[in-house]
């Protein structure tokens, strides 16, 4: 009896590249999307739309090392498009609204430092949250973030500095004894 051929034998190199791309970056994309929009379901939709758009223009990706920033750029555009279409308020998270209570928060850490940090992060204004996410989750430098956001590197550095200051301020407001080592 002949052994069955591997499933991947009939898969095109383009499809294999896309599978690898999706498996390598979907986690980071989801987390970035979640912290961008604050909603689990919407974050999943954003990841799916992002990867489907990536599939359509996969041939334009020449360098595997550029995949993550490329995908983050697509995701940001998808988010902006959704925002324009549905009038989603991406800054609402910091405007005194109740933070979404969904699966992403339902962990044993909910009442620990991580939960406080998450809550503070969700309240951070969008203009500070986005560059901070690009730096912490996206692994981008100030220059790369500046290029991504169409801003000057100096302005991005200021936003990152203030983002951490505000996080510190919010956390110290909740628990004054917390020392985070921020300047």
């Amino acid at each position: 009896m002949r052994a069955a051929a591997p499933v991947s034998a009939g898969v095109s190199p383009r499809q294999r590249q896309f599978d690898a791309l999706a498996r390598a970056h979907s986690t980071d994309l989801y987390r970035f999307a979640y912290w961008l929009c604050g909603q689990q379901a919407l974050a999943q939709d954003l990841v799916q739309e992002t990867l489907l758009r990536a599939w359509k223009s996969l041939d334009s990706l020449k360098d595997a090392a550029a995949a993550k920033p490329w995908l983050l750029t697509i995701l940001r555009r998808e988010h902006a498009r959704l925002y324009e279409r549905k009038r989603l308020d991406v800054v609402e998270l910091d405007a005194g609204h109740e933070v979404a209570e969904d699966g992403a928060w339902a962990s044993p850490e909910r009442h620990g430092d991580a939960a406080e940090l998450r809550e503070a992060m969700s309240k951070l204004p969008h203009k500070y949250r986005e560059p901070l996410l690009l730096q912490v989750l996206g692994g981008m430098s100030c220059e790369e973030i500046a290029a991504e956001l169409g801003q000057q590197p100096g302005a991005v550095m200021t936003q990152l500095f203030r983002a951490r200051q505000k996080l510190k301020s919010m956390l110290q407001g909740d628990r004054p004894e917390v020392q985070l080592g921020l300047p």
Partner: protein
Amino acid sequence: MDCLEFRRRLGAEPHSRASDFLAHRDICAGCAAAWQQAQSFERDLLGALQIDVPAGLVDRVLLAQATAERRHGARRRRVAFALAASLLLAIGIGGYAWHRVDATSLPALAVAHMPNEYATLALAQPISAQAIEAGFAGRGLALAGPVPTDVTYVHDCPVGPYKTVHLVSRVDGMSVAVLYVPDKMLSKQRDFHRGDWRGRLVPLARGTLVMLTDRTGAPPFDAVARDWRMAIDGVGAEQTAQADAVASEVWRLAP
């Protein structure tokens, strides 16, 4: 780098590996402590941001992509099939139209006329000049030049919609069927080949000469055309005949 600049950089880029940044950290105890605290905070921040990812997310995305791709593939195949069918239909219609047009062309009509007249090519006995002139007169035509010799057959034959004078000329023992089609005007001389028949269309002053033969060897079209041009168009037509012969040669040699 001073402490203020270090703290600003630390707040914006806590993972900076810039040499002046790290050098200041190494010589300033206060900033080194702040750096340690900042690294700890960054670890906490990264940990906090790493929320759980819904189970099966990537599989759902890949399923959606594969499904969409199959749907697009099916649509592409339908479009390709429709295009291929349209192309075949266009080729079929074009071929049918070409066949219809070609079937009514002068070469096709002349060749189609020959089976009924095939025996005339075997005639070897020359007929008289009077008989030839009578054949043209039957079509209301008068010859303007000398009647060619070695003409073995003349008859007024209908060829498709054309009322022709059908002749057979013999040159060096080779018979050539000649159809003179009055009032059928062509712009230029043209050779053709249909089945076993080789032929030539030659425009004359007031009509067209069609020559045909299925005999092997070089067909004496030039000589036959020259004789009939002189007979039909007149004596002065010889120079034109020579020019046409050159044109015919150029036409035959053209790729």
